[in-house]
C-alpha cells in the first residue's frame, strides 16, 4: 500500500450541540470533497447524551488517502460551545488556525482563545432563521465551501439528494442557506483550498470501519450473525441486518452476548459461516463461548470494536486495551487467532481474512477493530478483491467410522455438517478423544491440545501477517488504528533525515516470530507504539520475542488518538516515555 498522509492535509472541525446537524454537515462535506477529487477522513466526537449533547465532526482532506488526524486544525466552525470543554483537547489549534464562531452560541472557551487562533465571529443561526426553513449547519457548509473551494454546486446536489425526502421547502431553505453562507465566506479573507487529486475520483469509496468490517465478513461468506447492541459496534450490526437478509443470510438480535456467541456456534456447527460483533464488555461475557469454539473446533468470528475500558469505561472513545483479553481471556489453554485491521479500508480485508482463517482452521478468530476505525468515514480507494484458497474441510462419507477430531497429520480434521448421513457426531467442549467422546485421559488431552495448537502455528498466513514498509535501522512496531499516525510520523522523520521502518501487525496471534525477525533484520532501535496505559502490546511482544537493539514504547491510553507529531517527536528525539 502506498497511501500516505499528506502533511499539507486540510483539517476542519465542525462543532455544535443539540440538533445543530454537525454530523450531517460533516458527511455532506466529505461526500462533496470526494466528488471534487479529494481523499478524506471524518471522525466523530460526541458526548454522552443521546440527543442534544455536544458534538464535533472532525474532517481531514488530502490529495492521497488520509487515515489520521493532523497535528492541528486549520479551520474550526462552531455553531455554539455547549460542553465544548469536554472535547476541546481533541481539536488542537495553533496561531495559524482560524475559528469561525457564531457569537449567539456563547463566548469562545478560554482553552481555544488561549491558542492564539484567529477568532472570527460570524452569525450562522440568525441568517438561517431569517431564511425560514434554513439551518445553521447549511450556512456553515456554505462558508466552508467558499473557504475551501469545494464547489457549491456539488454541495447543492448533495443537499438535494439527502433532504429530498423532507420536502421541497426544506430543500429550498437549505439551498438558500448554502448560498448565503457561501456569500459570507467569500467576504472573509480566508483561503484554505482543499487538496485534490481528481484522477479516478469516480471510483473512490466512502466507507466507515464498521461498514468495511461488515462488508469483509459478507465477502468472506458470513451468512449468520447474532449480536447484542453495544457502542461503538451496533452500527455494524445495523448495517449487516438487511444485507445479510438480502444475500440469503440472517441476523438475530440476541438477548445478551452469552446468547450471541452461542448462537453463532450453533449456526457454524450447522455449516454456515457465522460471526458476532461486540465491544469490550461483550467480549468479556463471550470468553467462555469462545473457549467452546476452540475446544469443539467450531469456526467463529468475533469482531470486537474496542472502546475505553475497563468496565463500562468510555464507550464513545477509542482505545487498544482489549488486546490482553483477546490474547489471554480464555480459561484453560485455548489457542485461537487474533487479527487487527491496520486502516479503515483494511477492515474489509481483515474481516474477510478472519472468516477465511476461522473456516480453514476451525477455530475462533477475534478481530480487534476500534472506535476510531469503526466510526470514522474515509474517502479512499476501493479495497482490493482477495480470493482465499482454503475453505472449511467438510467430512465425506467413508467406510470406517467417522472421527470428528481425528489426528490426521495436518491437524485440521474434516467436519461433518448436520444432514450428512452416516457422519453424525457430538461436538463437545469437554476434552474428548478422536471420536468426540468425553475423555479425562492424559493422552487424549495432550494430543487434542497439540492438535488445536499446531493447526494454528503450522498454517501459512502468507504476507498478510503484517504491513511492512520502508527500511532503516529504526523500526516502529505498532497495530490497529495507531498505524496511520505512525505512518505519517515516519514520513516526517524521513523528511527530517531519519529513515524508519513500519511494521504494523495484522496477525497478533499466533505471533509470527520468524517473519517478525526477518522484518526487523538490521534494526538497532525499536519503538513500539500503542494506545494503552499499561503497554500491553509492548509486553506481549517482549514476552514472545527478543526485539533487537534498544527498545522503547510510546503508549498512551484513550480517549485522544496518538498524533503523528508526538510519534515523530519521539522518533526524532530518540526517547519515549
Amino acid at each position, binding site marked *: 500500500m502506498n497511501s500516505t498522509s499528506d502533511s499539507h492535509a486540510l483539517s476542519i472541525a465542525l462543532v455544535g450541540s443539540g440538533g445543530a446537524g454537525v454530523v450531517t454537515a460533516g458527511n455532506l462535506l466529505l*461526500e462533496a470533497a*470526494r466528488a471534487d477529487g479529494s481523499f478524506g477522513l471524518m471522525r466523530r466526537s460526541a458526548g454522552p447524551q443521546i440527543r442534544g449533547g455536544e458534538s464535533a465532526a472532525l474532517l481531514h482532506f488530502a490529495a492521497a488517502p488520509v487515515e489520521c488526524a493532523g497535528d492541528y486544525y486549520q479551520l474550526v466552525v462552531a455553531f455554539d460551545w455547549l460542553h465544548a470543554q469536554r472535547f476541546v483537547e481533541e481539536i488542537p489549534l495553533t496561531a495559524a488556525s482560524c475559528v469561525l464562531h457564531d457569537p449567539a452560541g456563547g463566548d469562545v472557551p478560554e482553552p481555544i482563545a488561549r491558542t492564539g487562533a484567529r477568532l472570527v465571529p460570524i452569525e450562522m443561526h440568525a441568517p438561517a432563521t431569517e431564511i425560514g426553513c434554513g439551518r445553521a449547519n447549511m450556512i456553515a457548509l456554505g462558508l466552508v465551501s467558499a473557504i475551501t473551494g469545494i464547489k457549491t454546486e456539488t454541495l447543492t446536489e448533495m443537499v438535494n439528494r439527502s433532504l429530498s425526502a423532507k420536502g421541497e421547502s426544506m430543500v429550498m431553505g437549505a439551498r438558500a442557506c448554502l448560498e448565503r453562507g457561501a456569500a459570507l465566506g467569500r467576504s472573509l479573507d480566508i483561503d484554505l483550498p482543499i487538496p485534490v487529486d481528481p484522477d479516478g*475520483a*469516480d*471510483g*473512490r*469509496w466512502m*466507507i466507515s470501519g464498521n*461498514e468495511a468490517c461488515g*462488508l469483509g465478513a*459478507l*465477502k468472506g461468506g458470513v451468512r*449468520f450473525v*447474532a449480536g447484542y447492541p453495544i457502542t461503538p459496534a451496533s452500527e455494524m450490526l445495523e448495517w449487516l*441486518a438487511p*444485507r445479510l*437478509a*438480502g*444475500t440469503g443470510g*440472517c441476523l*438475530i438480535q*440476541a*438477548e*445478551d452476548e*452469552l*446468547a*450471541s456467541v*452461542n*448462537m*453463532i*456456534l*450453533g*449456526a*457454524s*456447527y*450447522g*455449516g*454456515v459461516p457465522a460471526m458476532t460483533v461486540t465491544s469490550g464488555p461483550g467480549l468479556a461475557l463471550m470468553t*467462555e463461548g469462545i*473457549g*467452546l469454539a476452540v475446544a*469443539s473446533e467450531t469456526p467463529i468470528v468475533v469482531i470486537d470494536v474496542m472502546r475505553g475500558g475497563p468496565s463500562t469505561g468510555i464507550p464513545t472513545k477509542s482505545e487498544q486495551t482489549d488486546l490482553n483479553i483477546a490474547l489471554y481471556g480464555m480459561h484453560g489453554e485455548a489457542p485461537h487467532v487474533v487479527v487487527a485491521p491496520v486502516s479503515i479500508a483494511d477492515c474489509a480485508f481483515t474481516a474477510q481474512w478472519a472468516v477465511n482463517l476461522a473456516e480453514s482452521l476451525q477455530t475462533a478468530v477475534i478481530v480487534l477493530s476500534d472506535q476510531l476505525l469503526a466510526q470514522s468515514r474515509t474517502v479512499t480507494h*476501493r479495497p482490493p478483491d482477495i480470493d482465499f484458497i482454503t475453505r472449511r474441510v467438510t467430512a465425506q462419507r467413508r467406510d470406517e467410522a467417522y472421527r470428528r477430531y481425528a489426528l490426521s497429520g495436518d491437524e485440521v480434521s474434516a467436519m*461433518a455438517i*448436520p*444432514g*450428512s*448421513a*452416516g*457422519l*453424525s*457426531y*457430538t*461436538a*463437545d*467442549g*469437554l476434552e474428548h478423544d478422536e471420536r*468426540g*467422546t*468425553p475423555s479425562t485421559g492424559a493422552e487424549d488431552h495432550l494430543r487434542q491440545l497439540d492438535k488445536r495448537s499446531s493447526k494454528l502455528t503450522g498454517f501459512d498466513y502468507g504476507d498478510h501477517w503484517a504491513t511492512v514498509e520502508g527500511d532503516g535501522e529504526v523500526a516502529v512496531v505498532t497495530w490497529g488504528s495507531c498505524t496511520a499516525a505512525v505512518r505519517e510520523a515516519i514520513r516526517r522523520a524521513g523528511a527530517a533525515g531519519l529513515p524508519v521502518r513500519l511494521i504494523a501487525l495484522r496477525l497478533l496471534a499466533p505471533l509470527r516470530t520468524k517473519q517478525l525477525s526477518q522484518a526487523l533484520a538490521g534494526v538497532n532501535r525499536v519503538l513500539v507504539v500503542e494506545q494503552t496505559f499499561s503497554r500491553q502490546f509492548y509486553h506481549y511482544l517482549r514476552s514472545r520475542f527478543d526485539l533487537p537493539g534498544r527498545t522503547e514504547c510510546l503508549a498512551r491510553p484513550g480517549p485522544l488518538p496518538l498524533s503523528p507529531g508526538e510519534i515523530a517527536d519521539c522518533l526524532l528525539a530518540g526517547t519515549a516515555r
Partner: protein
Amino acid sequence: MNPIPEQPRPKDYKSDVKPVWCPGCGDFGVLNAITKALASLRLPPEQVALISGIGCSSRVPAYTSLYGFHGIHGRALAVGAGLKAARPDLNVLVAGGDGDGFSIGGNHFLHACRRNMNMTYIVMDNEVYGMTKGQASPTTAPDWTQSKLTPSGTLSRAFQPAAIALAAGATFIARAFSGKPNTLAQLIVLAMQHPGFAFIQVLSPCPTFRPEQKEWKNIVRPFPADELPTSDPALAALHCQRDDGMSTGVIYVEARPVWSRSEMEKTTIEDIEQEFRS
C-alpha cells in the same frame, strides 16, 4: 451405518456410547422416550440435531446417533436457536437439566419462549445439581436442607417452569414423568410436530441425591383431561398455579406465528459495494 429402515426402531437412534448416568436415573427414560419419538416420526437421524449444555442430563446427545452439540453450561437454547436460524431444514431438539435451563440459562429460557422458534426443549427436572454433588437447584423446594451449600434450605421460592414458560410466551407447554417413556414419547412427537417453541418439563428422579424422588412414580397423575390442554392462557395459568407440580400432560397449545428469517429484497455483494461508490 445402514440407511434408516422403513420402520426404524428406537435403538437405531442410540449410539454405542454407554451413559454415565447412575442406574435408576430418570434420564434413561427420557433417552428412551426421545428415541421412541424419533422412530415414530421416522426421522433420519442425520436430520435431527440434539443440543445440550452441562449437567447429567446434558450428556444425552452422545448417547444418540443424532448430530449433537454438548456445549457449555446454560447456553444450549442459544446454540439451538443459532442452528435453527441458520439451518431451518433441521429438526432441533434441545435438552438439559433444571439448573442448566432455569438458573444459569434462565435468560435464554425466557427469550426462547417469546421468540417462538420451531424447536423442542426438554428439561429433565430432578430439583438438584447432580454433577456437582447435590446442591439445590432453582426448582428445589425451599425447605430442602440436604445440601451442605444451603443447610437452611434455599431461602427462595421454587421456580415454576410451566407458569414461567406460559408468561414468557411458549406456545406448547407440557409436563411429563420420565418413568413413563411411552407417554413421554407421545408428548415429544406432539412437541416436535407443534409449529413453534415447545417446552416439556420432565420430572426425572435423581436416585443418588434425591432418593425420596423414587416415590414420584406413586405421586404423578394426569391433568384433568376435560380441561387441558387449553389455548386459553388464563386457564393454563390457573392450572399451573393450582397444581403441586406433579400433574402431567399437555397444558397449553397456542397457534402463533413461528419465528422466521426477515425477508429482504435479494441483493449481491456487487450491489452492496455499489453503495460505497459516489
